[in-house]
Structures are given as structure tokens and as C-alpha cells.
């Protein structure tokens, strides 16, 4: 199938893009990597009046140190993030999760911002951003606002982005010393959409107990899930199978009706969430030990 006609614009600056988005409002969609949008357009699941192609706005692609972590321009290609030494050093969780995104040809075009703005429930980066308490900068012709990740994802393919707004920067705080992270997902074949995925961070105290833990799950609901009750259970505990099992049980209890589809039943997704949570926490804790 082919997309129906649309008006095409290729702004060369953020200001130009914002003016176009303001002018065309609900008729406009932003084209970044296109790896999620163009399939929808090809299948006519989305129809738009104006396509605002932001691939010419070079100023939106960057990875910079910020607050011990990173400030990432939304047009940064996933493939570029995988090659970036600063990202690997400061936020290996982000890099590890990005390895699971699709395939090389997808990652050469897909962008970090696109994944966040599109908010597919199976997407890895929204779950990671949620676990790391990232904040998102959004600009429009009337100004800019900063949205914390926990307020950004509203539902299935739904975010807090309004007509006329453009996601410009993702800011991810750094992790404490003596911490380790891991991203684990399960799919039928490499590169397939995850049936479930877990991002975990474990930070250790001087005495080796868990000072803090973070969890973010994808593909277990319409939005990424941040199971705070499970995180609270982990604080002060000794790292080990008992702690991971208790946390994993709490994660499963927190899941509100995981999806059931041809790829897996709700029960299977709960099972995966339990197993992957234990694996991710164990891996994160082991890496935290090595960082002590």
C-alpha cells in the first residue's frame, strides 16, 4: 500500500519547524527516523495533511554530558548512540537497551526522540527513560516546557505532546557511584518486538546492601511501567536471589492487565516480567559490585 497525498515540508531550523507545526496543527506529523511512522503511513493507519521532515535540522542531533548523565538531541540516530563513547561511559543502560532496537538498517535511521514521542508500548527507550527519571524538553512557537518522563507517557501511543509541539532534547541524570545497570528483553527472534523487557539499576551502599534500585518495563501494558513498590522493597536488602524474587513478585502484582495477543498471553507476559526482572536485577547488582 502507498500513503495518500500529503503536503511535504523540510525545515532547516527548529524555528522553521515550530512555525510549520503551529500552522498545520492537528494535520501535521513530524518525520524523524520514520521507522514507526512510515509503516503506519504506508498501511494508511495514519493519514496526515502535512509531513514536517526534521531530518535536515542538524542542530537537533547531539550527545552531551549533563549532570553526570547525558543531554541527547532528539534527532540523534540510535546507531550514533551505539557508537558514542560518552554515552557508553555515563549511561551504559541506554546503550544496552538501544542494541535491542530492531536491526542495523532500522537503527541507522531511527532516532532516540522518535521512540519517545511515538511511545510504542514495546519500545525500549521509554522504559529506560522512565526508570532513569529523565526529563524531556518540548518546544513550540509559544515557548518551551520540560516534562518529566513519569508525566509524559499517557497511554497507548499517547504522550503529553500537544499539537504544534516538538520534542527537542532528552535529559537523563547520571547514576550514583557503586551502581550497575542491565537491560534484558525477550523476543522470539533477535530484533523482534519485545514480548517483555526490563531495565534495572542497582546502587549499593558501602556495606554492600542496596541503597537504591530502579526498574522500568516495556511491553507489559499500554505504557512503560515503573514499579515503585518493587523498588521500595529492595532498599536496604542484601543483594541476592531472595531480594530479586521478592521484587519480581511485586512487579508482577503491579502489572495492570498485560496485553494478550498472538505473540503471547497475559499470563506469559507476567511470567516473562517475573523472570526478566530477576535476571536484570541480578545482572545490575553484579555490575554494581564490579564498580565498587
Amino acid at each position, binding site marked *: *500500500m*502507498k*500513503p*495518500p*497525498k*500529503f*503536503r*511535504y*515540508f*523540510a525545515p532547516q531550523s527548529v524555528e522553521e519547524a515550530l512555525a510549520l507545526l503551529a500552522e498545520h496543527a492537528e494535520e501535521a506529523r513530524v518525520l524523524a527516523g*520514520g*521507522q514507526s511512522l*512510515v*509503516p503506519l503511513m*504506508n*498501511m494508511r493507519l495514519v493519514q496526515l495533511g502535512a*509531513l514536517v*521532515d526534521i*531530518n535536515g535540522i542538524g542542530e537537533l542531533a547531539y550527545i552531551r554530558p549533563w549532570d553526570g548523565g547525558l543531554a541527547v538531541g532528539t534527532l540523534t540516530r540510535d*546507531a550514533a548512540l551505539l557508537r558514542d563513547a560518552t554515552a557508553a561511559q555515563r549511561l551504559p543502560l541506554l546503550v544496552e537497551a538501544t542494541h535491542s532496537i*530492531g*536491526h*542495523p*538498517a*532500522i537503527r*541507522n*535511521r531511527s532516532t532516540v526522540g522518535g521512540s519517545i514521542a511515538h511511545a510504542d508500548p514495546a519500545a525500549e527507550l521509554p522504559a529506560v527513560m522512565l526508570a532513569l527519571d529523565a526529563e524531556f524538553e518540548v518546544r513550540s512557537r509559544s515557548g518551551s516546557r520540560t516534562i518529566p518522563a513519569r508525566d509524559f507517557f499517557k497511554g497507548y501511543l499517547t504522550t503529553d505532546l500537544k499539537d504544534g509541539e516538538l520534542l527537542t532534547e532528552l535529559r537523563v541524570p547520571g547514576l550514583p557511584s557503586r551502581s550497575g545497570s542491565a537491560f534484558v528483553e525477550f523476543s522470539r*527472534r*533477535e*530484533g523482534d518486538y519485545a514480548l517483555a523487557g526490563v531495565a534495572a539499576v542497582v546502587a549499593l551502599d558501602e556495606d554492600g546492601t542496596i541503597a537504591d534500585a530502579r526498574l522500568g518495563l516495556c511491553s507489559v501494558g499500554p505504557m512503560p511501567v515503573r514499579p515503585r513498590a518493587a523498588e521500595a522493597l529492595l532498599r536496604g536488602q542484601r543483594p541476592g536471589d531472595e531480594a530479586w524474587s521478592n521484587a519480581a513478585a511485586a512487579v508482577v502484582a503491579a502489572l495492570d492487565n498485560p496485553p494478550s495477543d498472538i505473540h503471547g498471553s497475559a499470563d506469559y507476559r507476567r511470567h516473562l516480567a517475573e523472570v526478566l526482572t530477576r535476571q536484570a536485577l541480578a545482572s545490575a547488582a553484579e555490575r554494581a559490585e564490579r564498580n565498587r
Partner: protein
Amino acid sequence: MQDEDFVMIRLKVNGVTHRVVVEPRRLLSDMLREDLGLTGTNVGCEHGVCGSCTVLVDGQSVRSCLMFAVQANGHEVMTVEGLAHEGKMHPLQEAFWEKQGLQCGFCTPGFLMTAYELLQHNPNPGEEEIRSALAGNTCRCTGYQHIVDAVRSAAQAMAEVGATVPSGSGA
């Protein structure tokens, strides 16, 4: 190049400059096949999962079914037709032939372009690395083993020949 019903784009394909008039909604895959007659690039799914449409844009593999032709304006594209040089098959093509890495051939151009990119970055990939790099290309005929063998064989042949092997694009 804004807000026109038809747009004139200028791009290099396999080293040759082309000027094409397209609608903005024209996919790169369809432009290559129908406007330029380069039917080596195949269209299997039109939503990015099968890999048959894989080409290189500015040296990077992309799904040509997920790019609009207008986005390739001013850029360089390499298709499977750009692999052979002066009538001689690229070592990858030789290897696919020798190792029976194809049957119907529909997926083959996509595999060749993906493998070409792999070997540019990793001239000596192991089996796992090959399978991982090719995981985004679907084959309905071969069961993949001969494809993996072909890529390994090509890597060996290219290493024996030396640092660079010319391809049709001259890139």
C-alpha cells in the same frame, strides 16, 4: 523543495547522477524500481520488517520502503546493481552463487546489501555476528545456513584479495 505537488530531486545512484520528478509520497523503493528501472531492490512488506528493500544511503543500510524519495535528494544511494564492477561479480555475489545462498532470489539483494555493510565494519565476523547482523532479513527458501556460509566465504575471499574491493558505485 517545499509544499509542491511534484518535486524535482537530484541524487546519485550507484555513482550515476539522476534527476527525477516525484510526488512527496513516492517511496524510495518505488522510485528506484519504477522511475529508475533498478528492479534489483525488492519490496516484500512495505513496513520495514522483511529487509528485501535494503539499500545503502550515504553508505548506511536503510529500508528503502521507509524512506521517501524526496529524502534522498542530494544523497548517494547504492543498490544491489552497484555491487558488480565492470561485469565482474562482487565477492559477496560470487559467494552467494558458490554456496547456494539463494533459491528464488527475492530476499537476496537485501541480504547482499546488509552483508556488504557488515563486512565494511567487521571484515572477519564470526557466525553469531553474521546471524545477528542479518537478523533483519527474512528468507522463505533457504533456511539461512547457506546464506551464513556465503557471507563467511565472502569475508575470507575479500581478506585474501586485500584491503578494498571495487564495487560498481566506485564508493
